[in-house]
């Protein structure tokens, strides 16, 4: 039951360039989306989120875009830095219809930023 999908297991980008990580979802009840970053042996760290009433949210180098009709969101990192190298998880939640805002995670994309 893959309600949240990240179809690219890995991505390699040159330092200074843009990194684009993609995520698709199937459950139309999802109304809140988040991106987490994870280093080995650490827990996920929150990066940025977006509500379904918006189509874009920006925070510094990170921008998340949401296309509800396509059930697709993406995370843009610009410029990419070597310290951004990590696994990025897309997560979704049904905050208004669900009992709690549990997160449904994608499988993650390993981003490698080459110096």
């Amino acid at each position, binding site marked *: 039951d893959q309600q949240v999908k990240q179809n690219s297991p890995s991505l390699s980008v040159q330092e200074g360039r843009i990194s684009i990580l993609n995520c698709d979802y199937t459950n139309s009840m999802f109304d809140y989306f988040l991106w*987490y970053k994870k280093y080995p042996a650490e827990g996920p*760290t*929150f990066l940025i989120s977006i509500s379904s009433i918006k189509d874009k949210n920006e925070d510094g180098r990170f921008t998340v875009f949401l296309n509800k009709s396509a059930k697709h969101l993406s995370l843009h990192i610009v410029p990419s830095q070597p310290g951004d190298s990590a696994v990025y998880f897309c997560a979704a939640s049904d905050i208004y219809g669900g*009992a709690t*805002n*549990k*997160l449904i995670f994608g499988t*993650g994309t390993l981003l490698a930023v080459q110096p």
Partner: protein
Amino acid sequence: EPEVTQTPSHQVTQMGQEVILRCVPISNHLYFYWYRQILGQKVEFLVSFYNNEISEKSEIFDDQFSVERPDGSNFTLKIRSTKLEDSAMYFCASGYRGGDTEAFFGQGTRLTVV
């Protein structure tokens, strides 16, 4: 900066033994969660806890699992009789409210069942 802390960082246990994983959520948070990640797989929701009771649990969270907030600061996950397939990273998370806000995760406990 406040953070969620988990102990131990690594637990090795014999199959059939009971284990308790411990978490100290961020102090003013009201919603508490356990997630797990089996090696090579995605992070999966186990259970959420609010107002001193379970508010939602996944199908993974069967009768072998229980959670407790015994003293208002700690939040524990107990597995009564561990199985080999319980081997995973277990993450505790907490959030201030249940709406449009992020959950903060601990660094995880690696449980190895042998």
